[in-house]
């Protein structure tokens, strides 16, 4: 029973980690909490559901949906955030802009698709493997494998490729990166693209796990993923994974031990405790404020 709860928590926690990556990468470079990320996640799941309903086959629909969501991420950056960077506006203006973007995306989805929950097809065959007392459904295994593979991919991109090097350089010092000839705006757009894509993949996995998708799904998932990103140390990819797992497991326990009402606020309770005790998260670097 205990192991089963951990297993369920890990499965859902991995998808939080995937969403958290988007927050983490963007925060690393821009020092901005991208509040629109939750709605990007919802857009991913809902657009894929919409594409599937067009009967173009499940795999092409998912691939196109993921690509579209990535492009949406770039679009958000280009239309709403880049002009603010050019003006070198205060941080709060960007923050409020992303809240606005989130409101626009979510409510356009509601207006076009309706706010009701719609059935999402299962992506993995039904069935389960029983190891000892734990039950692994194929869906859970599929989610775990895909999320883990994707996280490793992202880590490799950031650590091993040239664009990843540019991302890390921009993260350390955006002005110095510019002086070294890095096209910072491209790097930022690429970051948004990566974030959008991984959010769309997470959206697909979660929707098929719960068998439903709806426009408002991004709100709580986004907040929990953000909590996960902060927990693990925002700006750090392994931190996102750790944070996602902590949120997922604690949520799964809260739902069984305390009652399902506690599920959604568990992430915040942990988040607030961690922020007060260790504001930089588990794996975050300490930031020094220069006067």
């Amino acid at each position, binding site marked *: 029973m205990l192991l089963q709860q951990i297993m369920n928590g890990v499965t859902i926690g991995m998808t939080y980690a995937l969403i958290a990556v988007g927050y983490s990468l963007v925060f690393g470079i821009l020092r901005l909490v991208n509040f629109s990320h939750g709605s990007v996640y919802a857009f991913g799941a809902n657009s894929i559901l919409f594409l599937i309903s067009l009967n173009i086959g499940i795999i092409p629909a998912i691939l196109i949906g993921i690509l579209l969501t990535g492009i949406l991420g770039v679009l958000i950056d280009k239309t709403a955030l880049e002009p603010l960077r050019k003006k070198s506006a205060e941080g*709060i203006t960007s923050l*409020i802009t992303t809240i*606005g973007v989130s*409101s626009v995306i979510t409510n356009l989805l509601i207006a076009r698709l309706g706010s009701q929950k719609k059935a999402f097809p299962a992506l993995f065959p039904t069935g389960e493997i029983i190891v000892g007392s734990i039950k692994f459904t194929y869906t859970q295994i599929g989610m775990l494998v895909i999320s883990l593979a994707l996280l490793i991919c992202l880590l490799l991109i950031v650590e091993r490729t040239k664009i990843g090097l540019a991302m890390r350089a921009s993260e350390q010092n955006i002005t110095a990166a510019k002086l070294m000839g890095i096209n910072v705006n491209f790097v930022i757009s690429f970051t948004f693209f990566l974030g959008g894509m991984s959010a769309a993949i997470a959206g697909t996995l979660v929707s098929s796990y719960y068998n439903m998708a709806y426009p408002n799904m991004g709100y709580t998932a986004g907040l929990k993923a953000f909590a996960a990103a902060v927990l693990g140390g925002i700006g750090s990819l392994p931190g996102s994974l750790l944070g996602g797992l902590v949120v997922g497991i604690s949520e799964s326990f809260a739902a069984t031990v305390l009652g399902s009402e506690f599920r959604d606020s568990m992430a915040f309770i942990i988040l607030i405790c961690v*922020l007060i005790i260790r504001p930089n998260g588990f794996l975050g670097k300490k930031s020094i404020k220069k006067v």
Partner: protein
Amino acid sequence: MRDKKISFNNLEKFLYQPSVFMILTGAALAVLLIVPWLGLNSYLMNIVVKVAIYITLALGLNILVGYTGLVSLGQAGFVAVGAYATTILTKVYGWNFFTSLIVCVVLAAAVGIVIGLPSLRLTGTYLSIITLGFGEIIRTVIIVWEPLTNGPMGIRGIPRPALGGITFTMANSGMYYLSLLLMLLVMLFCRTLVRSKTGRALRAVKGDETAAVMMGINVTYYKVLAFVLAAVISALAGSLYSTQLGYIDQNTFTFDMSTIILSIVILGGMGTLRGMVIGSIILILLPELSRSLTDYRFVIYGLILILMMRFRPQGILGWKSRLPYPIRKTVIERISGPQNQTADDGETNHA
């Protein structure tokens, strides 16, 4: 361009002359007092009351966002505290609405302190996230604490405020005058606050926290104070809002509500009082009047936020006032007094 600025400056100077300002305020008050006799139907009157309540809420958030520079994304949580405190005391325990307000203020202040305390360690975005988390936790508390809050079922039939045999209802315009009174009191309070020592300290914290510390301002104290004031004002408005609605549950106080309040503050102009009025009128009145836009209402809110941040981050009615800062004569005397004295001393020493 320059001419335009100068004429605008003159206009501002003209409008803020004590005599002109008094006349304008008097006229505005007179109009506000006769609103119930304009023959608006009950639907419109409900919206007018809602606008007044949202102006009050925006004024509360404005103390945080506009003057202290702390972005709170959990205002709905404070509103919920006030609404539930009053509702439970009046409906379950049969208290008078106005007595329950005292408890509501005390409770909100306590909650404000609790939420303000993390600001000891956290700044900027992290603090905003804490407030957001707080808003969500309050909703969970409402759901879980079922014996007291009736959980997800909500509370129905909230009694109207009554005092000395008179019940303040929508029909006898009592609700309107009550919300108007609260709005005006809060406005007066904010105006006094901004021009006081406390207000100057709050603005110093917004301007530059480090510099404020250097000037000997107890930054922590003023931040927590800002949270307490915002919480109390929001809770009071929330109490009134609950009696207007007559029914509350946890979904009355969602993140959307916090977004609307924040949008009002930003649209109108952070750090101004006039902005809160125009912001509420635009954001509450317009969507209600154009029912066909209901589906796209929050899309419009979002667009307003984006466009305002892009083109006019200071808000519609936000501008850098060119009027001299109204420092009271006693303060000037206190500041300039000793200076003259030292100058005199210096001279005498030289002589």
